[in-house]
């Protein structure tokens, strides 16, 4: 597999990975130091926001404005969201164009982070917490799947929603069982390998977005090695980020990367299930733990293998 030229790698490190990793690590450490271990989820949540913004600031891989020439107005955003969700139709004809499905990804990741942070307050009933998570996942499944694709493949909507919700549940549980950052670090590796798949799918933007995920999760995971804590909100964002980007790649890219390769990137967060038997793994030492980590990365590793086999990159 030929590697990109050094100046391209350095550009990605300088403008995407470095800023996201630095911002996420810095914010997590600061908030965790100031507010203590009980507020670690809040630290992780703020770190996700900082890392995401810092990583996309220079390359503009993730525009937040609906129209690059107009400032973002709340009314316009709400109208676009309502139309995209199919909640209402505009009165004007022709209707204003809808943003691409990937536009909603950062907002959905933000919603996941906020929900996962809020439900960690004591006294939240379990059905309330899962109801909120379900709402975010349902919105994500609808917003990230184009209407034409929903009509052609009706099974896709529940499948996407199911994967996201399951990944969210797994991430939540592993974040509590492994406070020293291993789930976030593994999720970061998944994002990095997924970025390799997107590179072979000929999408620089999606590659960058996964590198933002890598930098942010790595920053949080590495920081948690020093100041442990529950990184659940970060893993909630990852549970939507990877499947959402894989879905986007499926309907936006043109390459010989097989559909299964892209699907495995979307399924990657489920690999964290290998860390669920935490007590068992922590008792049986590093070798068993290492094998569990490899098992967690196996699906997305297979995706990269399929991509490299299908596409020979030329730089």
């Amino acid at each position, binding site marked *: 597999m030929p590697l990109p030229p050094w100046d391209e790698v350095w*550009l990605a490190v300088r*403008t995407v990975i470095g800023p996201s990793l630095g911002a996420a690590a810095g914010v997590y450490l600061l908030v965790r130091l100031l507010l203590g271990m009980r507020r670690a989820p809040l630290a992780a949540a703020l770190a996700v926001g900082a890392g995401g913004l810092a990583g996309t600031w*220079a*390359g*503009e*891989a993730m*525009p937040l404005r609906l129209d*690059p*020439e107009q400032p973002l107005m709340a009314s316009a955003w709400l109208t676009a969201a309502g139309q995209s969700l199919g909640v209402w139709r505009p009165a004007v004809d022709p209707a204003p*164009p809808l943003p*691409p499905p*990937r536009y909603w990804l950062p907002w959905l990741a933000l919603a996941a982070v906020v929900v996962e942070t809020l439900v960690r307050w004591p006294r939240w009933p379990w059905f309330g917490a899962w109801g909120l998570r379900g709402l975010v996942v349902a919105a994500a499944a609808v917003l990230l799947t*184009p209407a034409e694709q929903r009509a052609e493949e009706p099974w896709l909507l529940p499948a996407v929603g199911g994967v996201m919700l399951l990944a969210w549940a797994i991430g939540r549980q592993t974040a509590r069982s492994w406070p020293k950052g291993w789930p976030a670090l593994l999720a970061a590796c998944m994002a990095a390998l997924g970025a390799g798949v997107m590179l072979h*799918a*000929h*999408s*620089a*933007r*999606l590659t960058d977005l996964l590198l933002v995920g890598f930098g942010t999760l790595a920053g949080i995971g590495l920081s948690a090695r020093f100041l442990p804590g529950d990184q659940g909100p970060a893993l909630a964002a990852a549970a939507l980020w990877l499947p959402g980007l894989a879905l*986007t790649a499926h*309907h*936006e*890219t*043109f*390459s010989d990367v097989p559909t299964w390769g892209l699907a495995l990137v979307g399924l990657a967060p489920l690999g964290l299930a290998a860390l669920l038997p935490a007590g068992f793994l922590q008792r049986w030492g590093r070798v068993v733990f290492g094998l569990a980590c490899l098992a967690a990365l196996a699906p997305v590793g297979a995706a990269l293998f399929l991509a490299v086999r299908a596409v020979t*990159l*030329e730089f």
Partner: protein
Amino acid sequence: MTRMLCTLALVTLMSAPAAEATEAKFSLTGNNTKVTFVGTKPNGKHDGGFRNLTGMATVDGSDVTSLKLSVEIDVNSIYSDNNQLTQHLKSGDFFDVRKHPKARFASTRIEKSGEGWNITGDLTMLGKSRAVTFPATIEASSFGLKLKTEFTINRTQWGMTYGKGRVDEDVKLAVEVTVAK
């Protein structure tokens, strides 16, 4: 009676020249119309174009100002000097072909400018329509049309915003039409 016949003949003779200046229609296809582009980046450039398009050009005799152009480009027919780049251009990073398979141009006005002409029209790409004006050399008659133009657009005006610092925003377009009846 004779006077009436003479008057009728005179009217017929006077209207005959006007009947010669009929509207000529030319069908535009990828065979007679070439649309190419040059995209640049800090350390190089790439050439490409679009193979398939359909359209119509109508003109009143040799009156170039009456020329009307309407073209629909099949964006999926895009090609470039690098196969990977072609697939990248089709993706959501640039043309997002699956969502926006067609690009369109419709002229609204043609004016004399020095020794050539200025064509103004609406260029629609990625669902956004923007007015463009560009210089062109045009030779038009009822029997054929030749048009040649080169101009630059800023791709970000049509929402093609990705690649800041990696790919230049200005793209050179060239169009050449050679069609005869």
